[in-house]
């Protein structure tokens, strides 16, 4: 299933907005993880604006697809996608990390559209496995459970407990996407704790594996279509999405120093101007620079 150029342009714009809003909210909240939010902007854009069957007017719709963000420190990208999709006003993003505002990681009791709470890494895939098991028992075959995991958190044992069990239960209603951005909190993954060979590991655990460029809209949409409609054959499916940590701004790309760090308003202004020019948009800085 090929997207036409109009669809691609639309989704690229959503990815741009997700990046932009992620940086805005991290700057405004003076806390956050820019690197992992920027690396998964296209993934979130394609999921929330092309793939997921969700309805912002009916967030509890029983037949909705479920999305679990295991790498919950990248919550800004998810919050931005939810706001742009209409789950809550975009203005609410500017309450990120403020008391009673949007929680630094994820709190499903506080934010409409979230399907789980998290932040401690390695835990989300197990939740997705339970959800997929439960939805299959409920005999809602159309529903899919999507889970985005990080490469860094794939050094956690809990991920592999979940991986083993998903295959054991034949959960082909579970689609995992790995945001393989190559960098964890304090350095390159291969330096900190090597996770390769990633593809072979997941295959050995009994999963069907797709491998894509995680910034290519066409590839994300194509693999998502395949994972949902073509592949299911009693095996869970993982899309290994190769991405660039901090994608969109030169200084943050593949730079572990921007894993957890918030830009000053001045830095954010420069970053957002660079991002807008790079994405072919009118030059636009930090919206709250002068506040």
């Amino acid at each position, binding site marked *: 299933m090929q997207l036409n150029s109009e669809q691609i342009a639309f989704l690229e714009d959503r990815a741009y907005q997700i990046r932009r809003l992620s940086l805005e909210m991290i700057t405004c909240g003076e806390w956050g993880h820019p690197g992992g939010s920027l690396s998964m902007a296209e993934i979130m854009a394609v999921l929330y604006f092309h793939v997921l069957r969700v309805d912002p007017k009916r967030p509890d719709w029983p037949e909705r697809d479920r999305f679990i963000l295991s790498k919950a420190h990248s919550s800004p990208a998810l919050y931005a996608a939810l706001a742009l999709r209409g789950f809550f006003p975009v203005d609410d993003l500017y309450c990120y990390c403020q008391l009673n505002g949007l929680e630094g990681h994820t709190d499903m009791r506080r934010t409409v559209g979230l399907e789980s709470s998290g932040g*401690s890494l*390695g835990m989300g895939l197990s939740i997705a496995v*339970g959800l997929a098991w439960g939805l299959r*028992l409920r005999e809602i075959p159309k529903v899919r459970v999507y889970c985005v995991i990080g490469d860094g958190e794939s050094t956690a044992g*809990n991920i592999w407990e979940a991986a*083993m*069990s998903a295959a054991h239960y034949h959960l082909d209603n579970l689609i995992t996407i790995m945001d393989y951005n190559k960098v964890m909190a304090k350095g390159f993954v291969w330096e900190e704790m090597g996770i390769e060979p990633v593809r072979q590991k997941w295959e050995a655990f009994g999963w069907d594996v797709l491998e894509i460029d995680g910034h290519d809209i066409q590839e994300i949409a194509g693999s998502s279509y395949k994972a949902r409609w073509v592949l299911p054959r009693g095996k869970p499916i993982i899309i290994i999405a190769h991405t660039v940590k901090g994608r969109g701004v030169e200084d943050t790309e593949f730079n572990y120093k921007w894993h957890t760090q918030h830009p000053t308003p001045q830095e954010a202004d420069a970053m957002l101007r660079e991002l807008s020019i790079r994405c072919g948009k009118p030059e636009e800085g930090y919206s709250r620079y002068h506040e």
Partner: protein
Amino acid sequence: MSDSNENGTPQMREIFGLTLAEMGEEHEDILVVDADLHTSTRIAHFKEKFPQRFIQVGIAEQNLFGIAAGLALAGFTPFPCTFASFVSRKAVDQFALSICFPALNVKVPGSYVGLPTSKAGASHNSFEDIAYMRTIPNLRVAAPGDPADMRAVMKTAYETEGPVYFRVVRYSLPDIFKSDHTFEWGKGELLKKGTDVTLFGTGMMTDRCIKAAKLLEAEGIDAEVVHLASIKPIDQDLIIDSVTRTGCAVTAENASIIAGFGAAVAEILVEHYPVPMKRIGVQDQWIDSGEIEELFAHYRMQPEDIAAAAKQAIAMKKGRK
């Protein structure tokens, strides 16, 4: 299965397993999740009746609680079952963050609590679970004291929306309550009125408090006995009301005295009505392998030890006057 004591009373784990299987008939939303211990925890009874609603995760306790969270999100009421030491030592992050933080409807029996674990030793003897669990927001914590109390706690746990942790001991206990007994969160039970000292028991130790009261009675000491199955929330009014009359207290728990049940009672007394008190339980030690009754003697958790602590508390009270 050697389930019963010399009087033929089934162990509390057996009462739990049978009750869960009964509840499964009435409530189709109950799912049971196992980490390779179903004959030990007695959820095998549920598995036999409802194999389609029984999920095996293998020896993977972190996954056990993550999966339980997901099942709750799908609208079910899961009971992930393993030994208490594994809940609090191997998977407390998953339990706390994935289940208790979003207040998901998951009921967690902590099995094999305290000393009676069939000679398993330090790895399997859970003494810290009360301390861990009662610090987790949104979580309710209970330790039933007899078979009727187990059934009542489980019924209430099911009817309560949100996460529950309850202790299941591998031990037989005599009946304290009648079969129509009910359990309410934050409500204790005054089992015997007294004037000299209050013995606060939870879980299996309430039976030992009753026995201690009899020993004290033989020495002319009139002990009040209070059972507090609901550890969180705890019955603050009953605790204060009782010590107002008796003036001193002893707590007894099949767990560490540090930050556990005795500490919960002490917190209330210190803030509202300070009186002399002593705590019976595991004293900052790892638990050894051994015959179960031998362990209770070794760790000074027998009725005689409770009675001795009661006399110390009374002496402290008199020394103050």
